């Protein structure tokens, strides 16, 4: 996954959670950032807008850290590029 993607994800997390960008890294985990379940759904909402993707519930169930989150988004962007636009 690209540095650009990682930077955009870090920025979304810091903006949603209202914490300094420098406190969020690719190696951060959600517990360490004190991201609870409501924070998480807000971040997912912001990521869907940022990348114009739809993130299914079952894709996020086991995501616990920023690296897993970036990898998941990378995959969803790739899936979207390789398939015709789905009806929303």
């Amino acid at each position, binding site marked *: 996954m690209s540095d650009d993607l990682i930077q955009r994800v870090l920025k979304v997390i810091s903006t949603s959670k209202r914490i300094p960008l420098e406190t969020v890294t690719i190696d951060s985990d959600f517990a360490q950032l004190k991201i609870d*379940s409501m924070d998480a759904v807000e971040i997912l909402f912001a990521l869907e807008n940022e990348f114009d993707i739809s993130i299914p*519930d079952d894709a996020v169930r086991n995501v616990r850290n920023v690296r897993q989150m970036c990898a998941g988004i990378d995959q969803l962007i790739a899936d979207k590029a390789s398939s015709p636009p789905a009806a929303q």
Partner: protein
Amino acid sequence: MVRVAITGLGAICALGHTASEFAAAVSSGRSAIGPIRSTDVSGLRFQNGAEVPDYSHTPYFDDRRADFMDRFAQFAVIAAREAVADAAPEWTPELRENAAIITGSCVGGQSTEDIGFQEVYKHGRNRVHPLTIPKTMANAGASHISMEFGVTGPSFTISTACSSAAHAIGQAYWMIRSGAAPLAITGGSEAPFSFGILKAWEAMRVVSPDTCRPFSKDRHGMILGEGAAMLVLEPLDAARARGARIHAEIVGFGMSADASHITQPSAEGAARAMRAALRDAALRPEQIGYINAHGTGTLANDISETAAIHAVFGSHVKNLPVSSTKSMHGHALGAAGALECLAAIVALRDGILPPTANFNEPDPECDLDVVPNHARAAQVEYALSNSFAFGGLNAVLALRAVAH
């Protein structure tokens, strides 16, 4: 202190159009969860809900009256009519003047608002229908019930998300118990199936993609429901004196606030509400024979509620059946507490504990006797009905069977 009898029952929800259809369904463990039909859900991540089957206002209201009522207010009146017909009170001018109406609703007529706002935001029109406000207001159910029966006493609506109806019934119970009202019509109603509201629930990521499996290890969230349930409450002595049928008694009501998080439940808050209901009823935990759980089927609620029940009931838990009828009628938000109080009343009255339907697999974090999938014959004297809301506002009702 005045004892409080439940003399009238009314309901309309996914399980049926009357309280007796509801009773038959919960007592047989039939789940009414299925594809949402009233709204186009092709743009949603979830497709299933618990809607009132084949609903039309036509058998209940003439077209002009229905024009003034959102679906949630129609449900409120339909259930109230049934409850009042069941109780058959002797209406005197004094009774009409002093009777109370207390309803619960979470979203009120937001479906009407949702449609109205599409006109200006989506279709670029310059006006919204003039009945949008009176149809949307959450108190419309109570108002239409008051007009239906010419009841002019204290009437209001409580909105505490998923605890709304339980808070309403509890308040009505206290008003009868204290002598503040001679009769109360109380319960809750909800009709949340419009696209904008469903989209908002989708964003919360708490709605199950298939069905509602409370306390089951493979549960994936809640299923939205709709409908209404209404009760008629009156002093036990007065009800007996006029020979009314008494379905059950309400004997206690407890409330609490979590004061912790806007959506995540707190086991301590839930436990405090159950303890408050027991204290109000002057009951020991060991006297409770059945709990109708809040049991939403979300990961968080069911673990938290289990912990709360363990905290309150200790070793009695192994002898305490706990089921969630949301597995059958869905989560009807502001009507949930009324539908579930009704399920508990039916359990006490008929000696049949409703099951937790759709149950597949025990979860070690939900180690309760959840009455999986099959109703159970058991004559229980006391039951609790739990309601725990987003926002951490909790309400618990304590009920007693009529002695045989």
